[in-house]
């Protein structure tokens, strides 16, 4: 008889590996949604722990808005090369060219909202029945209520009132044709947990997570990277600042924070004392208090 108790990072890791293996065991055609952000990078590490020395039982899928940080794409391609797994890219540009979505206009135009259509098309085209994502319940109030196995109808919609009860560690992945399940293995991790895990596992990250000099403009009180993708006018003043990014999304909706955190230890110190939560640096959540819930109902990650 033993009296062992797992340390919290080991417990979170073991839970995530367990969830990934449930996906492998329960679904015919799963996929791992890979954004190039630290959460999906963590998922790749966890998948290695779950399935090596075997291959992943799923490809990685990147929904590419075309408005990427170059550092992210460079990172993605090197990582795919290293792990030797299949990468499928869904291009938002294709959805625009096919006339399925219309590019937003105006100063705050972003392709972030258009991703949903490309994602759903990519899911349909490849027949994915489960999509693994790196969302966490601590990110936002609507996510705090989402299941680890979250069933979506054929329109990708999440219905918060019709969620399946999720008991013990038993995940019900049974679905009808046309439905699919979004699976969130790191639901129970916090931002700090992810960073501590990345440090412990010595996982490499895209360089934009660390402090660097960059041209930025201030918009709606937030620092946005100056880039050809951002609609700028004479009122926008470009400044060179020391910044880093806390999330890695589309360049037009991911705000930077002023930072001198050059090493992972600095970042963990910074977050431990931080007074702004991670999603606070995402302009897409600022629209309204119910923003995330509405987008999830529409099939967002």
């Amino acid at each position, binding site marked *: 008889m033993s009296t062992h108790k797992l340390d*919290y990072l080991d417990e979170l890791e073991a839970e995530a590996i367990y969830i990934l293996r449930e996906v492998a065991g329960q679904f015919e055609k799963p996929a791992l949604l890979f954004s190039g952000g630290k959460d999906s990078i963590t998922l790749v590490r966890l998948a290695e722990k779950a399935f090596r020395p075997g291959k992943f039982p799923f490809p990685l899928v990147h929904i590419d808005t075309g408005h990427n940080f170059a550092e992210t794409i460079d990172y993605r391609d090197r990582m795919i090369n290293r792990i030797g797994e299949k990468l499928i890219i869904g291009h938002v540009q294709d959805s625009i060219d096919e006339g399925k979505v219309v590019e937003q206009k105006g100063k705050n135009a972003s392709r972030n909202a258009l991703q949903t259509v490309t994602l759903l098309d990519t899911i349909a085209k490849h027949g994915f029945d489960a999509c693994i994502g790196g969302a966490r319940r601590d990110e936002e109030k609507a996510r*705090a209520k989402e299941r680890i196995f979250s069933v979506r109808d054929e329109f990708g919609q999440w219905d918060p009132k019709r969620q399946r009860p999720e008991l013990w560690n038993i995940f019900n992945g049974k679905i009808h044709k046309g439905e699919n399940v979004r699976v969130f293995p790191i639901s129970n991790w916090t931002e700090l947990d992810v960073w501590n895990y990345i440090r412990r596992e010595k996982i490499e990250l895209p360089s934009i997570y660390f402090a660097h000099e960059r041209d930025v403009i201030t918009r709606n009180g937030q620092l946005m990277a100056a880039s050809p993708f951002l609609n700028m006018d004479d009122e926008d003043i470009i400044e060179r600042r020391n910044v880093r990014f806390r999330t890695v999304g589309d360049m037009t909706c991911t705000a930077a924070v002023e930072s001198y955190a050059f090493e992972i230890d600095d970042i963990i110190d910074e977050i431990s004392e931080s007074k702004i939560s991670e999603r606070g640096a995402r302009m897409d959540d600022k629209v309204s208090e119910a923003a995330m819930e509405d987008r999830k109902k529409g099939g967002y990650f």
Partner: protein
Amino acid sequence: MDILKFITAGSVDDGKSTLIGRLLYDSESILADQLEALHSSNRKNDDGSIDLAILTDGLKAEREQGITIDVAYKYFQTDKRKFIIADTPGHIQYTRNMVTGASNANLAIILIDARKGVIEQTIRHSYLVSLLGIQQVVVCINKMDMVDYSEAIYETIVNDYKALAYKVGLENIKYIPVSALKGDNIVNESDKMHWYEGKSLLHFLETIELKIDDSTAHARFPVQWVVRPQTEELHDYRGYAGRVSSGSFKVNDRVTVLPSGFHSTIEKIELLDTEPTEAFAGMSVTIHLKDEIDISRGDVLVNTDYQPELSQQIEADLCWMDTRVLDTSLTYFVQHNSKVTRCKIQEVLYKVNINTLEKEFNEDFKLNDIGRIIIKTAEPLAFDPYQINKANGGAIIIDSRTNVTVGALMLRGISE
């Protein structure tokens, strides 16, 4: 540092969301932008102070109706421990949500309104906490500010609760008088109740020693996935991937594979590039056996000397979670760890009126009903009684028409 998962049982009227909000707020677990949203919200308490309940009300429908519909998970940590709160609704129509939240909790906070004392819903919540096998209970007698912080009222409620606890079979109970609204004894000790000599709720949560029942139970390892690279250099590699659900496995342990009954010995335990000599409850690993046996997902490796029950006819407690009533003529699926097989609810022995704890014999099994049934399964389940080993005694019922999870089973024993 470890993780404590707890559930809060109480209704909106008891100030449950306020209590959680207070825990987060006073332990400084709210970040600046969330705080800003909190302060700018239109919802205020009667005295104009901010309504902390907003912190846990996630969904639009809930904000409109002012109630908690679903299970919301909240995360915070102190220097001593990490906490996961499952905030579940208290009304009887949300019994299934409370059962869901309780299934993963190490501890339950039961809230009692000091003005009302032990009422029907206290009985219901306590019964569910007992049924789901939560081993540690904290009874928070809330709204003490509204009864002039009266020790006599507190003592009466504690005595009433002790009688209830005995009736539903709860042990290990801690009582704390609090005011979530004013912050008494939540994070900081109250200066208004000098007659109370205990510590605050947070202090208790930080220091309570967790019972690690999963790791003291017998060794069980449900196989989730078979790792077979089938490459040239790893031609014969065959590893069984899974998570130890209870007990512990060591290299050279004798194990039995169920339901087939074949025996073998553990050759190696792997976790990516490491080879631990032992895997205990909660660990996700890959196990190699010395003999070549046909093992697939749904099988379970167990300690040969301490085997679980193996049966196709099992007595169980059932909580029904669907709006369609239980149909004893219908074939459902049962999922027990990684095993899924067809089943029928062969017989309903009785239902429990969870407000009075009396048995009922005549009615349909409806949404939120709880009772004792006999289940017949197409293939045998290798289970332990839930009261002895939660990790290997819980199962779910899935409706084969809708694929929805419609029932929670706490397996009790072989039905003769």
